[in-house]
């Protein structure tokens, strides 16, 4: 009896692993990984040097489409940007922070029929410490549009969803 249960449990674990490996190969998983990679490049460790910052700013360009619509309610940062503009803005913004950590979760991904366009609704958590030692810990829901360019997903739109409108 015990042997039977053990064999059944092993089979269950094996099936789960196979399913997980299969799932990881699909486009949705690629999109999730793309967000994780993007977060890695936005994050800033305490004491990170100028050289690393420059490399990260250069890498960030590859995450965006030729034009990316960034929408933040009641913010002057909203607008349509080119990857170069985003890279230079990121350098300027990152210089104000001692430490930055961004994390994405609760993904709801919708792909079009051809799997070339995607709309992603997700939760973003932004934790940071300003140079003047003030801590920031904000959570927002975002709606993002991505477009598949070659083999890579690039961001076309970032919109912060306004839950309450005064």
């Amino acid at each position: 009896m015990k042997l039977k249960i053990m064999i059944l449990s092993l089979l269950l674990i094996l099936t789960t692993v196979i399913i997980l490996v299969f799932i990881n190969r699909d486009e949705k998983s690629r999109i999730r990984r793309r967000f994780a990679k993007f977060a890695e490049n936005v994050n800033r460790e305490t004491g990170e040097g100028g050289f690393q910052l420059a490399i990260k700013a250069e890498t960030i360009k590859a995450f965006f489409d030729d034009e990316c619509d960034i929408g933040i309610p009641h913010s002057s940062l909203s607008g349509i940007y080119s990857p170069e503009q985003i890279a230079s803005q990121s350098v300027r913004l990152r210089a104000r922070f001692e430490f930055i950590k961004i994390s994405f979760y609760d993904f709801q991904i919708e792909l079009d029929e051809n799997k070339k366009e995607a709309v992603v609704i997700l939760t973003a958590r932004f934790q940071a410490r300003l140079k003047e030692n003030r801590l920031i810990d904000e959570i927002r829901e975002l709606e993002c549009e991505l477009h598949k360019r070659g083999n890579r997903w690039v961001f076309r739109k970032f919109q912060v969803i306004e839950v309450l409108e005064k």
Partner: protein
Amino acid sequence: MEFKQALRKFLLPELNRRFMIRFAIVLVMAYVFFAHICIPMRIRGSSMEPNWHDGGFTFCWCPRFLFREPRIGDVVMIRFAGKKIMMLKRIVATAGQTVEFRKGILFVDGNPLPEPYLHGKCDWHLPPRTVKTGFYYVVGDNRDTLMENHHFGETPRKRIMGGPLW
């Protein structure tokens, strides 16, 4: 002796097939109940003080508005980001009604709204605005803060997930 045996059997059950099935059913039901029907929530922030305290604990009772629509005075849980982050607010106006603050007093359709749940006074001033169809106007109970620092406004019905259990 029989009681001891029964207690022993209850605390240290035999790991047979029947037990495994029962255990699996309990796990699934607990997951469904606590993830979708009665979601545990920790309160962070003082927006609903002194009626709901910072650091407090409650459950989001999702069936609250299953058989009736939210009304003025109801405290609701609004989905802020993902499924786990919600805002606790009170409904002060429904679709089509006009809301405004005059010297800290809330006026709905031009008449002052009795708010016995308020404990402090405020000096908020907000020009009149009409609540859109399918939306509810929500405000927190703690109005001791500056109006600019308080999250309030109209929110779509679909974001109202339920109400606090207590």
